[in-house]
């Protein structure tokens, strides 16, 4: 293998991403290892190494005695070609051993358009693609990550899913495998036992029955599998495992920095946001623990950039306490501290000014919709006034750059809402003219619109997606109302978001489309240069599935949804209520003001929801 690699590496782009050997990489002696896990990220090294979830679970697994977890990433197309030409199997970075030698193969799935990469990685490993084609206990394939809250599109390919946060469930799963391996269980025995671990979903234990109109009629559990599988969460984040010895990439990656998650869950309730609902309930981490972990991570890695992450960091109650300690430390150590997703309140403004001394980052807003009416529908609690006040402050403080993110195709959207975006952008420009302290460098407003994708486990899970043509019409309409030279406008490719809509709300049958498109060469779909819509359209045709069934049709409220047997804590009843409030244009106050009764608090046994 090594000689082959030496021959191939000079011929591919960015060879450093294929060799491992980074600082803090975990190596173990094989004679002390009973279970080997190949932890696969279905995208490139640069993307995967930036993933916080993967960092955590890599550490969790390697903390276990007798277990060695190694990393595997999707090869870029030039490497894939070289591998096929040289009959070389996909390998894990740490040992450079082929994946096919491993006991367990794990995937973290955070993006629907990486599904073909999963298939490609299985194929390049020499493993059969489908669950039913794989035999024996060795090479069992499991997956987790936000996408797996609707696991159905991947049901054919993945042996079992680990739903929700994995800090506690992953060791349980691996310990069971360890036992199974020692006692020489069959694959069937293991799957039956693993299905008993809370949060584990074994898709082959469920039969999907459909109505004549193609909608789902029933999911029938077999082999004693539970009717609903509830995601796992960690209740006490302060005492949960957190990797302060992160792997330090030797080559450049997308987010090359330390990352500190300040709390989990979200108090906001934006109705389109999957993470906002599926990551509930709210659990905090204390500022003391965070400070200690920040310092340890920075010292162990030598990295000079750290970001405080979460779904909405300014909602973190300990933010002042934490930053009061962390900012002086970072200044002294020449570390730049970034706090994304700040809101427009007074404290955030102060904080922004303080951080400015550390490093200037751009000003970013995600109003998502152009009018207050539509922002109320989606429950995006951000007013025009807030945006303009923050802009005014920032402009007078020397900023000359604003990024604004919107969605098009939101439920109830009219042309008036679309033009509301142009109006808001115009007001931002006016604000700059009035407040800019330095007009010499000019203003740059970057506007981006995404194509709305209805997501499972959100109040909009039933909604229709508009057609790509209609989306493009709205983009053009908007563009024709941008008059200033300061505006830079980007819009997402609707073809990609349309497929995303299919796979995020798909049932089991769309698995065949994924396999067919893959056969036709689809992979690395998230990358413009590789996205091949043609292959996908042919696949739908070949599989006799109507793409509109999953996109423009919309799902009925009384329909059994493909992910209804997956419980993320938030109840369907609550989502439905939120949907109706949306249609009436009623906002729901954030959790801190008043608990909206989403149901996710029922997942907690020891503590209360800490909104």
């Amino acid at each position, binding site marked *: 293998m090594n000689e082959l690699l*030496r021959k191939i590496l*000079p011929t591919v782009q960015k*060879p450093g991403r294929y060799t491992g050997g980074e600082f803090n990489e975990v190596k173990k002696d094989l004679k002390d290892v009973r279970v080997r896990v190949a932890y696969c990220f279905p995208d490139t090294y640069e993307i995967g190494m930036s993933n916080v979830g993967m960092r955590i679970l890599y550490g969790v697994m390697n903390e276990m005695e007798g277990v060695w977890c190694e990393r595997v990433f999707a090869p870029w197309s030039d490497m894939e070609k070289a591998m096929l030409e040289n009959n070389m199997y996909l390998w894990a970075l740490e040992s450079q051993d082929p994946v096919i030698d491993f006991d367990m193969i794990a995937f973290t799935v955070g993006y629907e358009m990486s599904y073909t990469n999963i298939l490609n990685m299985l194929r390049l490993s020499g493993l059969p693609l489908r669950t039913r084609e794989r035999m024996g206990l060795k090479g069992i394939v499991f997956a987790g990550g936000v996408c797996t809250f609707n696991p159905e599109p991947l049901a054919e390919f993945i042996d079992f899913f680990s739903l929700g946060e994995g800090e506690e469930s992953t060791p349980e799963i691996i310990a069971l495998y360890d036992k199974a391996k020692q006692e020489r269980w069959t694959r069937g025995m293991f799957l039956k036992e693993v299905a008993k671990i809370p949060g584990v979903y074994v898709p082959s234990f469920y039969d999907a029955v459909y109505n004549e109109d193609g909608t789902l009629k029933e999911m029938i559990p077999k082999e004693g599998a539970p009717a609903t599988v509830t995601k796992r969460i960690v209740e006490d984040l302060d005492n949960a495992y957190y990797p302060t010895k992160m792997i330090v990439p030797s*080559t450049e990656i997308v987010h090359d920095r330390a990352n500190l998650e300040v709390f989990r869950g979200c108090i906001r309730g934006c109705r389109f946001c999957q993470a906002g609902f599926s990551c509930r309930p709210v659990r905090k981490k204390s500022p003391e623990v965070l400070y200690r972990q920040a310092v340890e991570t920075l010292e162990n890695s*030598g990295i000079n950039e750290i970001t405080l992450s979460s779904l909405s960091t300014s909602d973190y109650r300990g933010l002042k306490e934490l930053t009061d300690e962390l900012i002086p430390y970072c200044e002294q150590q*020449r570390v730049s501290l970034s706090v994304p997703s700040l809101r427009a309140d007074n404290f955030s403004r102060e904080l922004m000014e303080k951080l400015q001394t550390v490093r200037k980052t751009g000003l970013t807003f995600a109003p998502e919709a152009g009018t207050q009416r539509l922002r109320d529908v989606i429950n995006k609690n951000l007013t025009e006034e807030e945006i303009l006040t923050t802009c005014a402050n920032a402009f007078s403080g020397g900023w000359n750059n604003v990024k604004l993110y919107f969605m098009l195709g939101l439920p109830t959207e009219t042309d008036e809402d679309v033009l509301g975006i142009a109006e808001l952008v115009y007001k931002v420009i006016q604000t700059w003219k009035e407040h800019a302290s330095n007009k010499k460098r000019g203003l740059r407003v970057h506007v981006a619109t995404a194509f709305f994708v209805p997501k499972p486990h959100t109040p909009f899970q039933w909604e229709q997606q508009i057609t790509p043509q209609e989306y493009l019409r709205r983009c053009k309409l908007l563009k024709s109302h941008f008059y200033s030279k300061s505006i830079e406008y980007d819009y997402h490719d609707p073809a990609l978001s349309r497929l995303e809509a299919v796979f995020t709300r798909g049932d089991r049958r769309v698995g065949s489309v994924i396999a067919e498109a893959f056969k036709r060469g689809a992979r690395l779909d998230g990358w413009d240069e590789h996205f091949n819509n043609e292959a996908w359209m042919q696949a739908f045709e070949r599989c006799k599935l109507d793409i509109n069934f999953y996109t423009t049709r919309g799902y009925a409220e009384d329909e059994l949804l493909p992910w209804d047997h997956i419980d993320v804590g938030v109840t369907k009843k609550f989502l439905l209520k939120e949907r109706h409030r949306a249609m009436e244009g009623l906002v729901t106050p954030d959790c801190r003001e008043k608990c909206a009764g989403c149901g996710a608090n029922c997942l907690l046994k020891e503590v209360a929801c800490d909104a």
Partner: protein
Amino acid sequence: MLRAVFEKQGNAIWISHLDLMRLFQRAFKRAGLHLKHTQGFNPRPSVSIALPMAVGVASRCELLDFEIEDEGVACQQIVSLLNGALIPGVKVLEVYEGGRKQRDIALLQCAIDLHYKNKIPAKAPASLEKLFAQDSLMVTKNGKNGPVEQDIIPMIQAIALEPLDAKTLRIRATICCQNPALNPAQLVAAIAANKKSYMPEYAEYFREEIFDSSHNVFR
């Protein structure tokens, strides 16, 4: 100013020049050594590596110039602190104060291992020796403004070929590496252009030593 001599081998040879600079900056931090920063609006840690190296080249004579804020740390101590904070394949061999001006580096002794699929073609050593013994040898190189023709012979001071094993033929050459600089890969490009049948399956490159223009080892 302090100077470190370091080697780069194994998997670390795939790290690019820029990435290697960042790797060292982080290693200094992990080692608890504070690099001095440049003055100005955007302060940068003061580290520089002489003779940027192409990805895929191994070396045992790389030079890293740096300045630290910590006073009274012995050079020997810096060596061990840094080596405790570096990755496999990158190792500091020595650290000393001062050192000659980088612009006096003139020559590089390098080895190029030509790996053939089955065995070294019988006539390859003699034929390649002849190729490099010519009075001039034009090779196309990709410059900033497109391909340019370049005579590589004046930049080769010495060259010899020896088989390492049945499949590997080693070229050892002393070539100009600064003003003008010859990329060792150009020697293989010359084989590709003129002696195609003797092209190896792949080649590996090593930097063995650097010299000033009078053939004194440069430090």
